[in-house]
């Protein structure tokens, strides 16, 4: 690991290493990096012969270098080992103090002038934030088959869901996961499933079924490196085409792409409203870097709006009820099984307003050619409403920038860092055009924002530029430069910063 990271340590930083182990190589590190060699293993062995605590010695050294309050280290040890193993807590405190003392002998703190707040902060992954958003919105059903990097959603919900009345079910495969979610959504609860690309591929037929039967549900797609089994523990943004094209035929969907844990919370909560208002699947697309990566977040507001959409029983009469009534918005009044008098059948075959099939004996008769056209148009009209109700693209950073980054999802974090670094270091004015909604596309708003763009660089975690191509298909705009990453690693800010310099040079 020394080999991997030694060149990353910036000027004014330090490398703590074991003098009896792998050492930094002088030619490979930056200038003004302090080298702090400590006999980590030997010091740990003074407390316990197996030297298990040598990492704790190094941790103590880091604490001293950063001027951190030692009490936080002690409380972290107590959190980990609790009251059950007080001797281990004490030993680790001693080990950390050995590391701290060693730093003091070698010049002490880095004097970075860091200030620390004692106010507690929330630390969580994107997947955990997403679960909280689902709970805030009133999710009552989650069916899932284990698949990295979406499994942590299943784990968290299995532990916390039942206390809040959420049925959490690990099922036999992703076909069952999606179909159960469809059944639960049809029966009237807020229902969700989550998976990665492989599992989503198996869900494709069933999610189209929800589109056809106008059943609300939320499908979470946490991307990992593909194709096929790919790199299961590595990140990518390579499943946008899959989400866009999932299912045979056309059916209305929205695809929301959170950029950070805050949006994992807020967009998931919003997805449940959109699913019920428009009675169709909403896809939340995230990735391993965002889903499994930890970030500090501000406290979430759990008072999210809850809008359940048009229900037939609210003021409507059972007589003449047509579940798939043709309307201007494309949204028809919904009835839940158990509601007296509103019985209907939801069908995956093409159907009339009352749910009766036109697929078997009626298809092709002139009157039913017309019926089919009208019903298909009714469903697809829901895209107009979805386009209105989904978050617009956003321009982040300075106006009149020399370069505009175009991005979606987790690239947000490193891109913002890179933009700030480029402005500070080289004085290049850069901003970024970001898309929390990938579909339906906000064509007019995007075109308006693109008008002021001098030069653009699309930054995307895939080979073909799946979003870049979508942008071009929807707006005719072709970014000047494309930076794709598909080696399994997330974008690093320094790589984006280098790319910025390269294209603006």
């Amino acid at each position: 690991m020394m080999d991997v990271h030694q060149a990353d340590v910036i000027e004014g930083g330090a490398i703590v290493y074991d003098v009896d182990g792998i050492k930094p190589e002088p030619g490979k590190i930056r200038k003004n990096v302090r080298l702090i060699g400590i006999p980590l293993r030997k010091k740990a062995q003074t407390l316990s012969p197996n030297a298990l605590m040598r990492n704790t010695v190094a941790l103590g050294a880091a604490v001293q270098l950063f001027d951190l309050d030692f009490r936080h280290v002690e409380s972290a040890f107590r959190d980990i080992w609790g009251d059950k193993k007080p001797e281990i807590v004490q030993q680790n405190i001693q080990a950390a103090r050995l590391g701290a003392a060693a730093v003091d002998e070698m010049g002490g703190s880095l004097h970075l002038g860091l200030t620390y707040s004692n106010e507690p902060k929330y630390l969580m992954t994107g997947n955990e934030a997403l679960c909280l958003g689902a709970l805030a919105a009133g999710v009552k059903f989650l069916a899932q088959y284990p698949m990295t990097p979406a499994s942590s959603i299943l784990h968290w919900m299995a532990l916390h869901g039942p206390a809040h009345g959420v049925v959490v079910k690990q099922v036999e495969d992703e076909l069952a996961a999606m179909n159960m979610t469809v059944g639960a959504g049809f029966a009237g609860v807020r229902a969700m499933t989550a998976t990665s690309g492989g599992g989503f591929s198996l869900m494709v037929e069933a999610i189209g079924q929800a589109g056809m039967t106008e059943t609300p549900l939320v499908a979470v797609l946490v991307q990992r490196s593909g194709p096929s089994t790919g790199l299961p523990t590595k990140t990518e943004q390579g499943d946008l085409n899959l989400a866009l094209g999932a299912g045979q035929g056309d059916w209305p969907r929205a695809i929301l792409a959170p950029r950070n844990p805050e949006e994992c919370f807020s967009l998931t909560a919003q997805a449940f409203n959109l699913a019920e208002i428009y009675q169709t699947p909403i896809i939340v697309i995230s990735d391993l870097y965002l889903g499994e990566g930890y970030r500090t977040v501000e406290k979430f507001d759990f008072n999210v709006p809850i809008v359940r959409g048009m229900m037939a029983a609210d003021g409507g009469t059972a007589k003449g009820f047509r579940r798939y009534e043709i309307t201007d918005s494309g949204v028809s009044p919904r009835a839940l099984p158990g509601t007296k008098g509103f019985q209907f059948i939801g069908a995956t075959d093409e159907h009339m307003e009352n749910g009766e099939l036109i697929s078997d004996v009626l298809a092709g008769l002139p009157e039913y050619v017309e019926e089919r056209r009208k019903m298909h148009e009714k469903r697809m009209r829901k895209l107009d409403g979805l386009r209105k109700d989904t978050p617009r693209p956003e321009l982040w950073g300075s106006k009149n920038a020399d370069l505009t980054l175009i991005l979606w999802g987790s690239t947000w974090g490193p891109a913002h860092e890179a933009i700030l670094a480029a402005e500070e270091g080289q004085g290049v004015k850069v901003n970024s055009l970001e898309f929390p909604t990938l579909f339906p596309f906000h064509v007019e708003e995007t075109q308006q924002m693109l008008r002021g763009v001098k030069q653009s660089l699309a930054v995307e975690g895939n080979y073909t530029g799946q979003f870049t191509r979508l942008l071009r298909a929807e707006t005719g705009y072709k970014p000047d430069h494309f930076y794709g990453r598909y080696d399994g690693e997330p974008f690093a800010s320094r790589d984006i910063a280098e790319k910025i310099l390269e294209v603006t040079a």
Partner: protein
Amino acid sequence: MKLEFEMDTYKSEIKPTWCPGCGDFAVLKSLQMAMHALQLEPWNVLIVSGIGCSSNLPHFLSTYGFHAIHGRALPVAEGAKLANPDLNVIVTGGDGDGYGIGVGHFIHAMRRNFDITYLVMNNQIYGLTTGQASPTSEKGMKTKSTPIEGVIENPVDPISLALASGATYVARCFSGDVKGMADLVQKGIEHHGFALIDCMSPCVTYNKVNTYDFFRSRVYDLQKEGHDSKDMKAAFAKAIEWPFVQRDRIPLGLFYRTEDVPTYEDLEPALKKGPPVRQPLGIEDPDALLSEFL
């Protein structure tokens, strides 16, 4: 005493599109009779089906229905049952749907012992797609997809499979006996647990082997021959009689039933608060939830 729901209450305005003589008419009738006998409120019944001739069945009844995709009726029904356990959930479909493309879900639904009644209209052929071999087609049967040697695979035996997978009510009936079928369907709906009712439902158009006459000359009533439906070993012995041991006698009736096994709904912790569909949305004490992240 006047009943609240007449027999016709359970019929919809849509007329079946099945071929004249199709065995599925008897299954439709027996389900209607069973619901009538139990006086089920039509709005509290959800019938889920897959794809195939038989899966059109829910259209012809006045309950709630969901006509799903091929092979996936069971998971849709399981999701609906978990969302609202107060619903009477009935699944209808064919042998291709349930024992072929959907056989994985079939096994898992049974081992969970959901309180769901599953009627399989088993005609040993693919009818809607005009006559290919099905997972229950007899060995040697010539079909459009097995035109030369006939079927060379062994058939799936749904009864043995159900017994081995944990179904708690396992029965076989025949469209030639609507009354007997209605009785088994009624008891299946009443049963607290997963009920598989394998309905031998002849396809008069594409299966010229397993006809009404084929069954009439072979079927016998398990209960009349003193079979003990509480005895799982005896049930297995009867299950393998046909088609594995011989094809001269075909047992009908109740193979196995036990009420000693809790259903999935009995054990699911989230359901202790009542049906999820009636629970309030949102979180009462978010701070408690958030505290683990501090």
